[in-house]
């Protein structure tokens, strides 16, 4: 008890505990009381799959929109034995991923990896890796807008009521409008799901291609929204169903191409323009998966 209540000060490291001189922060930046508060929110979220638990989001040394919610969840789950992977749009080497990885290296000195299987904790923005997640992995999503009903109902008091009473009929209005306008459900990102047959949830702006990966996953999936101060979760082996109509079933769209680098036919591809003539190339958005496959 004494240990968890004791907020370790910078001074303590240097003088009393005799820890390395360059360790200027508490492990993983957040103080232990904050982590405890966030862990409580996470545990509650795991008990009620898909339910948005409010938490007191802290100022982080990075702007909102840079994954402050995800970073706080990661910081609260991280232990010294963890191996961390950070991805942004599937890649480990984009600015956002690199800066978050550096942040945790600096504040916790833990191991990092780009290899999905080797990671014990993965924080992501906009993708789920192609390599299936496994038992004992924690998968943290950065979430900009946690409320799937926000576009229908701006009042938070009312959306809370709609969730608690399962008043979800209007969610289908959006899908109805899509089909009427486009002949199919046009929503391609942040495609809403129903979790554990109960709460409708925004899976963050992942492509709908990734939606099926959330279903019945052996990993723990945690969602953190910093600005909106919400945490929600999918415990392992939980049913996650994408909303649809009986006669327009959910379709995790896949471009009719194979990856131009590794040849994979069943991965999510980024479309890139390769020359001035406008020629296109399709490559895996998951760089780790693509590299591994190419090198095989």
């Amino acid at each position, binding site marked *: 008890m004494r240990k968890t209540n004791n907020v370790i000060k910078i001074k303590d490291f240097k003088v009393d505990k005799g820890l390395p001189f360059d360790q200027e922060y508490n492990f993983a930046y957040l103080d232990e009381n904050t982590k405890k508060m966030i862990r409580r929110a996470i545990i509650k979220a795991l008990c009620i799959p898909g339910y948005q638990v409010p938490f007191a989001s802290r100022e982080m040394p990075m702007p909102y929109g840079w994954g402050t919610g995800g970073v706080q969840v990661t910081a609260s789950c991280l232990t010294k034995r963890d191996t961390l992977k950070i991805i942004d749009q599937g890649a480990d080497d984009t600015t956002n991923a690199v800066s978050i990885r550096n942040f945790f290296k600096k504040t916790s000195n833990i191991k990092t990896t780009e290899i999905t299987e080797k990671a014990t904790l993965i924080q992501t923005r906009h993708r789920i890796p192609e390599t299936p997640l496994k038992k004992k992995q924690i998968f943290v999503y950065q979430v900009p807008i946690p409320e799937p009903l926000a576009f229908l109902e701006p009042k938070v008091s009312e959306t809370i009521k709609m969730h608690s009473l399962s008043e979800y009929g209007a969610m289908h209005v959006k899908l*109805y409008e899509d089909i009427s*306008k486009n002949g199919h459900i046009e929503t391609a990102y942040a495609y809403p799901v129903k979790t554990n047959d109960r709460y409708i949830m925004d899976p963050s702006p992942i492509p709908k291609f990734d939606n099926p990966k959330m279903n019945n996953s052996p990993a723990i999936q945690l969602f953190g929204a910093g600005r909106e101060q919400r945490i929600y979760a999918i415990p392992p082996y939980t049913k996650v169903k994408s909303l649809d109509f009986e006669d327009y079933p959910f379709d995790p769209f896949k471009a009719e191409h194979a990856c131009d680098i590794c040849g994979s036919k069943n991965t999510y591809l980024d479309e890139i323009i390769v020359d001035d003539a406008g020629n296109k190339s399709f490559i895996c958005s998951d760089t780790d998966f693509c590299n591994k496959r190419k090198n095989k």
Partner: protein
Amino acid sequence: MIIPLLKVTNLSKSYDNIVGCKNISMSLYPGEVLGIVGESGSGKTTLINCLSGNLEPDRGKIIFSINNKETDFLNISESEKRKFIRTDLAFVHQNPRDGLRLNVSAGGNIGEKLMSVGYRHYGNIRSLATKWMNKVEIDKSRIDDLPITFSGGMLQRLQIAKNLITSPNVIFMDEPTGGLDVSVQARVLDLIRSLVNELNLTVIIVSHDLAVIRLLADKMIVMKNGTVIESGLSDQVLEDPQQEYTQLLVSSVLHV
């Protein structure tokens, strides 16, 4: 013996110390149309809002009896109440903009009520929406248009379709033609009348226009200062009003 579909006993609602409505008792039988009249501020909207669940009364009892099932409207949980409102009641607002989503197509607006009671087949929702557009005399080619492109009369007919599509057991209407141009009032009124007859609807309609009540209502109540001062069959009340206030209303000396 026929059981009333709706039985109201001693219903009261005030706003701080302003009386909204006071000690209202009445009953409504299946297939009846009840008209509520009275000057502005007499409590008509307060009453209809209490009956339809938009407003929580201070005292009284509201019992709905539908398919041999009694619902003690003021003593059920909020989730039961909202479900009951969703499936058994409908509310047509004076201003159709209050009852429609303006950023959603006509078909989506009509279909929302179906989706909210569990319809999950796009084709079925669409064909029912088409059928109802037809019923309220909106060309079915407008099904994917946004309500903002509709005239006032069309908007009101759209709102009516949206409300009737799930066959609610009681339909509340608060001045349904009150906000419309005089030139289109007659058409909407005519539509309501033919739907009431065709579908044998049970309706509570508020209007300050006695012509509307004369045309639609089987029976009526007259309100003044929050209380009912006279009630009976519409023909009787309109032909032979007992209260001086009602006599003034009928002879149109009182401009309401």
